[in-house]
């Protein structure tokens, strides 16, 4: 029996994440929505979701000791899935809220989409937030892409995007006025800007892949 922890630090819609996981895992898998460090340390896999502003997310993570729990899970080598803000907090710093230091687990910056971006094909003004279904191009192989075609559409809802220092961290790319990294992956970390829990069939497939992922044996 495996246990998957969904980190609860008071930021966002955890129910959807836990319900989507429950939908795809074996019946004997336990999904724990928790802010208990001991329970997280005792879980086989860790999911860090999150919504809201960067400074609030960082403050809340620290307030419930979840920053330490994230670092521990990642350094232990347990499969770690970051979603939306759960991706952005892994970077070095975010432009949001006048500059917010983040966990600096993946070197890089979080930047805001600029005003006045236009669609290259139609010339239409691109709205921010980037909200809706955009195709994600695979940029390299990854176990979590199993049975998901490159260019499958996922649901995005964000105004900021990640820019890793090392280009090869990006295993998924998306276009919105510019090309940006939709997924960063390194060792046991897979972190996506989109919401797999809201991305219908392909999103559920990604969560199912995560529940079976063995980062040490395959990448």
């Amino acid at each position, binding site marked *: 029996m495996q246990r998957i922890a969904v980190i609860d630090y008071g930021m*966002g*819609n955890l*129910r*959807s994440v836990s*319900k*989507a996981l429950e*939908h795809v895992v074996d019946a004997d898998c336990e999904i724990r929505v928790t802010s208990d460090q001991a329970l997280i340390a005792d879980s086989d896999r860790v999911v860090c979701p999150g*919504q*809201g*502003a960067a400074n609030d997310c960082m403050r809340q993570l620290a307030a419930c000791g979840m920053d330490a729990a994230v670092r521990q899970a990642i350094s232990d080598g347990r499969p770690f899935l970051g979603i939306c803000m759960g991706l952005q907090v892994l970077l070095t710093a975010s432009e949001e809220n006048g500059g917010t230091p983040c966990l600096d687990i993946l070197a890089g910056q979080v930047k805001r989409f600029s*005003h006045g971006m236009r*669609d*290259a*094909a139609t010339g*239409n*003004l*691109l*709205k*921010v*937030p*980037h*909200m*809706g*279904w*955009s*195709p994600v191009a695979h940029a390299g192989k990854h176990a979590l892409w199993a049975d998901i075609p490159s*260019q499958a*559409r996922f*649901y*995005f*809802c*964000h*105004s900021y995007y990640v820019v890793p220092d090392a280009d090869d961290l990006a295993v998924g790319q998306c*276009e*919105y006025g510019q090309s940006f990294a939709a997924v960063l992956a390194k060792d046991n970390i897979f972190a996506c800007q989109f*919401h797999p*829990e*809201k*991305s*219908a069939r392909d*999103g*559920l497939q990604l969560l199912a892949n995560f529940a079976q992922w063995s980062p040490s044996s395959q990448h």
Partner: protein
Amino acid sequence: MGLAKRIIPCLDVDNGRVVKGVKFVDIRDAGDPVEVARNYDRQGADEITFLDITASSDDRETIVHVVEDVASEVFIPLTVGGGIRTVDDVRRMLMAGADKVGVNTAAVFNPDFVAEAADKVGSQCIVVAIDAKSVHQPGEAPRWEIFTHGGRKPTGLDAVEWAAKMNALGAGEILLTSMNCDGTKSGFDLALTRAISDAVSIPVIASGGVGNLDHLCDGVLQGGADAVLAASIFHFGEYTVEQAKQRMQERGIEVRL
């Protein structure tokens, strides 16, 4: 390929049941929000919006359970509107599994509520619903005014200015309904949709008046809408969401198929 234009079926929910006669042939209980939502998900809906029209405040809690039940089985974005007045209301819907919350009258009477809610839960969760009615005379420059209470009460507020103000206060999206067109099946108010879409930097959902699939396309192509919302053409089984997307694609609109 880029961002797809979205199709959003809207369900009116009264005391936990879908009303306004959904007539699908292939589901057992057309009043069950979970069954109806699942059916729309299968058809390829990009999001689903629930409008809670429960009159009694005692029964408001039922919509929370509806959202919980739907969010446990349907894995696309869900928006809930109707009766949202406080940040606690917003939070309760998000915790139940909604991704976005629609606010309408509350924003008109207390615009700072939008700023407060966006600050607490993030702009991306806050959809400001605008019900606008054309108030210009023939020959005058177009002007639309915000109405509340189902279109009965004028507010004196200019709809285009109001949309820009909501944008500035932190709204993440505008759900725009033309009170002139709603229920007419004659298409969106395209001039209104275009005026609002050009006035804001956030996505605009066009609503009110859809009678056929070309109306949906016109909302995007002429109105500049980022998403289109419709109720009756889908509920009564006249068209499926899939047919709507095929028509949009034929007319050169990028959709998720």
